[in-house]
């Protein structure tokens, strides 16, 4: 069956849970994960367990194919970026430093050096020829480092003053554990959230909102918005193809030009939306909906809370109490030395 923008097996375990149960599950487990990834007391084993559980449930729902197809390019760079951030910006020597790279000595020197010159020249030439910023910077840094290592770094200093404090990249056992735990925990949070997105249908959300007595006009707004997502995506895809047909991808473009191209997509997308909104508005009125509509008959929308929901929430609550109140750390409990 289709769920939002994807599809999932009808008989999957999560399909039987109430959507509010799934939402609470996500929120509670996210709170637990925040606890697991604390800098002062990381719990990589706990984070890994939750990640594995989320992946297993997604696999049982038949949604893993969709997860990797849709999110592969975004997930891994995000997790890698998270880990690198915590290595670079968390200079905790812990019990032993593995590697120390001074990056900044706490003073700014105004002047000119061979290293700076090589870096600037390379980056500018690369941009002019290839229209790329990132690889120009990386290449410039690398070339400057190599050349100055071989021939030294002659420079002229005009002035020097203190600014901020010295910075160094420290790689220690401690901050590696923290970085990996943060990445695993963040990944677990992502997969736990995808459990809700991948296994829920819009009609469940509508039913849940009715059970919560949210005004019907608000429910109507949200369900119309959700319905419009697939229309908007189809329109976006077609418009993007029309842009390609007009030669927008014939030459290489820099990031600003790509952003501007995206802005131009908004023109036909919004025009199409305006025309559609007239027709959708008419269709809605013709069915008899009005701003005074209060409480239409409930029809295959509301999913009752079952004993399974109670059990799941109970187990989850117990887990939360163990972690937050009793400060259970699975890594320490398992005797894994960090």
């Amino acid at each position, binding site marked *: 069956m289709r769920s939002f*923008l994807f599809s999932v097996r009808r008989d999957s375990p999560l399909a039987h849970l109430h959507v509010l149960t799934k*939402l609470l599950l*996500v*929120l509670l487990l*996210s*709170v637990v994960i*925040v606890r697991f990834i604390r*800098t002062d007391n990381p719990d990589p084993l706990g984070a890994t367990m939750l990640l594995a559980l989320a992946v297993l449930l997604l696999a049982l729902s038949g949604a893993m194919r969709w997860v990797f197809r849709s*999110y592969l390019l*975004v997930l891994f*760079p*995000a997790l890698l*970026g998270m880990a690198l*951030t915590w290595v*670079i*910006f968390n200079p905790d020597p812990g019990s032993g430093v593995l590697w120390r790279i001074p990056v900044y000595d706490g003073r700014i020197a105004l002047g000119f050096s061979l290293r700076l010159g090589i870096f600037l020249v390379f980056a500018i030439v690369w941009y002019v020829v290839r229209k790329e910023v990132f690889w120009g910077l990386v290449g410039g840094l690398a070339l400057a480092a190599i050349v100055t290592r071989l021939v030294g770094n002659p420079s002229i200093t005009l002035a020097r003053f203190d600014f901020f404090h010295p*910075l160094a990249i420290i790689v220690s056992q401690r901050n590696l554990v923290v970085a990996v735990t*943060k990445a695993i925990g*963040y990944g677990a*949070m*992502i997969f736990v*959230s*995808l459990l*809700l*997105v991948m296994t829920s249908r819009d009609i469940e959300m509508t039913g849940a909102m009715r059970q919560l007595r949210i005004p019907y*006009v608000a429910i109507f*707004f*949200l369900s*119309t*918005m959700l*319905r*419009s*997502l697939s229309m*908007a*995506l189809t329109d*976006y895809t077609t418009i993007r193809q029309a842009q390609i047909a007009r030669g927008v991808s014939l030459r290489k473009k820099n*990031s*600003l030009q*790509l*952003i*501007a191209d*995206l*802005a*131009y*997509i*908004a*023109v036909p*997308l*919004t*025009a199409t*939306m*305006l025309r*559609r*909104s007239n027709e*959708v*508005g008419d269709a*809605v*009125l013709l069915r008899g*909906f009005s*701003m005074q509509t209060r409480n239409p008959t409930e029809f295959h929308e509301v999913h009752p809370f079952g004993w399974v929901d109670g059990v799941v929430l109970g187990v989850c609550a117990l887990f939360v109490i163990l972690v937050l109140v009793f400060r259970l750390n699975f890594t320490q409990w398992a005797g894994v030395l960090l």
Partner: protein
Amino acid sequence: MHSKAQMQYGLKWNPNPPLTVPQLVAYALATGIYTILAWVGVIGLPVGVAGVSALFIAVGFGVPFAMWFGGWGLVMGFIGTAVGAGILTGLPIPVALAFGVGDVILYGSLLLMYRGLAPRFGVDPIGRDVFTPKGFIFFFIVAANLPHILGGIYGTWLLYTLGFVPPEAIPLTFSGFWLGNVIVVTVIAPILLRVLGPVVERFGLTNYGWLT
């Protein structure tokens, strides 16, 4: 509202009642568009700094939407960010919802400042004069900078509180938020304001206040 003189863009709650079904539907569809644009922006240009996207493309669309649709722009911003740039791109739900709140702060402050100050400075309250010198300067300060400082502070605080960003990375994270938004808004929003503003107005969908 009975006279043309009263049909001014401002900050009244409900200056042109009632809210009609076609308007509600149009705002729902606009929210869908914004959600898709937010999603595409993250998927299509993933430039990450300290675990978040430094170039949040959707804000370039959210600024004009807030300026045109008043309070509904805040709803679009919340849902579009939380769902489009958040949940649908793999951001954890609590983080996505919290970022959605951040965009409500951002677009809310934008709306208050732009519509509140525009008459005082003699610029158009929905940015139709954005390509004039005065209009652009006002836009650059009030729409492309100030609200994003507030949004950047909130977003950075959020990431720090949740433990996603170390203290040492706070200046970089904030700079990424703020400057990334400035670039995106400055490139995208004026195009939309100039090109689409008159169209949206002609279809009767611009809001004179918060609700209508």
